[in-house]
Structures are given as structure tokens and as C-alpha cells.
């Protein structure tokens, strides 16, 4: 019995294109991963395809995002909190901002407390106008609910950035990604309450994927800065 058309794999056990893509994206369950890895250990054909796709996925982390994708407002039913970050001026590559909620204080002592020496600047939008534009975080004061922030993290080009926020007595990962050439993070922060805001920003070197970045932060291998705004 023969196939009507040739199929793109030498044997039925070989991985399909969909399986290879999911594997390269790290989007496979533990049990399935073990099966794939066992096959990859003995199949040069599939191993080469996986290697090539992983290489391309890594390269795409620096790919320019098409303008059409960046020029539209995108609400999401999951959170209903997606918004487009559009800072004044043309110096910032516009990116979609996954909003995460953080609470910021309007404390009497104002100012920002911090640990670590990673350079961070903010652009702050209030009521549609720019309040601060690419301003060092140390100089930011008097934020209030409704303010929208965007972070610029100054670090070498081969680093990964991890941002965590303090929520309900635990650190929650808000963002993990390779640092972009303009250093702006493709996420925004919206101030939602008067409570204190705590953010941790990590810069990790020698990292090739999200999993590794997460591990490095927990192992204390990344440069770290903690902000209380």
C-alpha cells in the first residue's frame, strides 16, 4: 500500500510539523516531551528539523513587529486590560502593552526607593498627556491611579529582562523577554490603587530562553533592581 502523495517524514513515528513547532515553542506537556525527546535521540531527520526550527524561533525574538499589528487597540476578554502604549514623540517603537495592574502610592515622602543599580527610566501618561518622558525612575514622583507607565531598562544587548510584581504576598512574573534594541519593554503598567507598588527588574545574561531566565532569577544569577514606587 502506498500513499497517494509522499509525506514529509521518513517514518510514521517521526514528528509532524505541528509537533516540531510546539516542541520548539516549549508548548508540550511533560509526558509528550519525554516521548519526543526519546524519538529525537534516535532520529537524525527529526533532530535536524527541531534544531533548525529552534534556531529560527530564537532569531525571531528580534524580528520587527509589523506596524499593522501595533496600530490597533486590542481589548482582551481574558483581562480586558490590553492597551496600546503610545508615548508622545517618535523615539519609542510602539508595541502592544499587556497591562498588568500594580498599585502605586501617593506617599507624603514621595520619591522612589530602590535597591540595585540597573538603569531604568519611565514614560508616564496621564489623561492622554505625557507627564514624564523617558525620565530616570529616581525622579518620578506623585503617581496616581489611572497613570500609565512604560519602562525602559538600560542593559547590554545580549541580556534578557524579567519583570516581577508583588501581588498578594508573592512575586508574580509579568514579563520575560530578550531586551530590545531601543530598551523599551513591550508592556505597560496602569496604576490602579493607592497601595504601594513593588516591582523587581532582573537583567540576565547567558540566557537563551524563558525557562532559563526564570531559573536564573530564582537562583540569584541575574542583576536585580527592586523598586517601590
Amino acid at each position, binding site marked *: *500500500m*502506498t*500513499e*497517494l*502523495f*509522499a*509525506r*514529509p*517524514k521518513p517514518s*510514521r513515528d*517521526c*514528528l*509532524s*510539523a*505541528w*509537533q516540531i*513547532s*510546539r516542541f*520548539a*515553542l516549549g*508548548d508540550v506537556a511533560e509526558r509528550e516531551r519525554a516521548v519526543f525527546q526519546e524519538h529525537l535521540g534516535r532520529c537524525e531527520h527529526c533532530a535536524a528539523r527541531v534544531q533548525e*526550527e529552534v534556531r*529560527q*524561533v530564537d*532569531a*525571531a*525574538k*528580534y*524580528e520587527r*513587529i*509589523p506596524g*499593522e*499589528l*501595533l496600530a*490597533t*487597540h*486590542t*481589548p*482582551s*476578554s*481574558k*483581562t*480586558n486590560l*490590553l492597551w496600546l502604549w503610545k508615548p508622545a514623540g517618535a523615539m519609542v517603537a510602539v*508595541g*502592544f*502593552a*499587556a497591562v498588568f495592574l500594580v498599585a502605586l502610592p501617593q506617599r507624603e515622602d514621595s520619591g522612589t526607593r530602590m535597591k540595585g543599580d540597573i538603569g531604568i527610566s519611565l514614560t508616564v501618561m496621564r489623561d492622554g498627556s505625557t507627564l514624564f518622558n523617558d525620565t530616570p525612575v529616581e525622579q518620578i514622583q506623585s503617581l496616581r491611579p489611572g497613570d500609565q507607565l512604560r519602562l525602559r531598562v538600560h542593559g547590554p544587548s545580549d541580556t534578557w529582562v524579567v519583570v516581577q510584581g508583588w501581588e498578594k504576598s508573592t512575586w508574580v512574573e509579568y514579563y520575560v*523577554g530578550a531586551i530590545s534594541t531601543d530598551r523599551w519593554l*513591550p*508592556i505597560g503598567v496602569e496604576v490602579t490603587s493607592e497601595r504601594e507598588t513593588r516591582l523587581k527588574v532582573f537583567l540576565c545574561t547567558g540566557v537563551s530562553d524563558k525557562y532559563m531566565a526564570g531559573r536564573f532569577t530564582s537562583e540569584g544569577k541575574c542583576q536585580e533592581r527592586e523598586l517601590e514606587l
Partner: protein
Amino acid sequence: MTFVRDMGEAYRSHITMVRGRALRILGVEAAAQDVAQETFMKLLEYRRKGISEDNTAAFLYRAATNLALNRLRDAKRRQELLEEQASHTSPSASDPTDRPALRRILGLVGREEAEIAIYYYVDGMEQEEIAELLQMERRTVGRRLERFCAKAQKLLGLSTENHSND
């Protein structure tokens, strides 16, 4: 099963998969790039309606499949694609699976059969895997694949003997 909320991140993490997927179906890089962009716009459009996909990769994979298939089903575009492939590639060297013939037939048979055939012949997915991705019965996948083969054989002027998809 992963939902990727941020559009920029969704683009950068999935563009390789989407573009590769479109290229395998269409065989022409420029057309595949167009389909890739259309696919992400589809995702954006979907989310703008207030709907969230459970699995971003699966959503994009299916959307890219359908958009690429639309091109093959458009007679004018199909002809352009086939001419483009003929002018840039040597089928015997780079396309041992006779993809031009498959592409031509994908554009001529019913959409349901063509979609299943793409997953089976272009992606090398097994029927169980196709059923899982499309959330349908494996038997339905099998039936559609059989229908595709019957139509393809007719179009190719082949005997219906000696071919199997099980």
C-alpha cells in the same frame, strides 16, 4: 496549551511557525509572508471581538492553514503561485514530494477535504493528531481523507487501487 496575551510577544514567538506553515502550503516565500501577516491580523481581529483563544499556537496554526488554503482555492492566485514556483525552483531537486501537483489538487477539492489533506500530506500529522487539533472525531478525519484521495485520484486520472491513508 498556552495563551499568549501580548501581541508583540505572540508575533515574535510564533512567526516562525506561522510563516513556515504557510510556506509549506504555498511554496512561495513572498506569499507565505503575506499569509503570516494576515494570520496575525486575524488573531488581532478575533481578540478585538472580545474573544480569547485558549491556545495561541493552535489558533494561529489553523488560521494560517485556512488563509493559505484560500489562496490555493483562488484560481487566479493558484496559477500565479504555481508559475512562481516553476520559475524559482526545480521540482525534482527541492520538491521530491511533487508538491505542485498536490497544491493544484488542494485548490480544486472541497475545503474540508483539502484542510485534512494539508495536515496529513504537508505536515505529516497522523489522523489522531489532526483530530485533536481540529477537535473532531478521528473517524471524521479518516472519512474526509478518503474523500480527498478519491477526488485526487480522479483528478490525476489514477486508479483507486493501491493507495491507503491508514
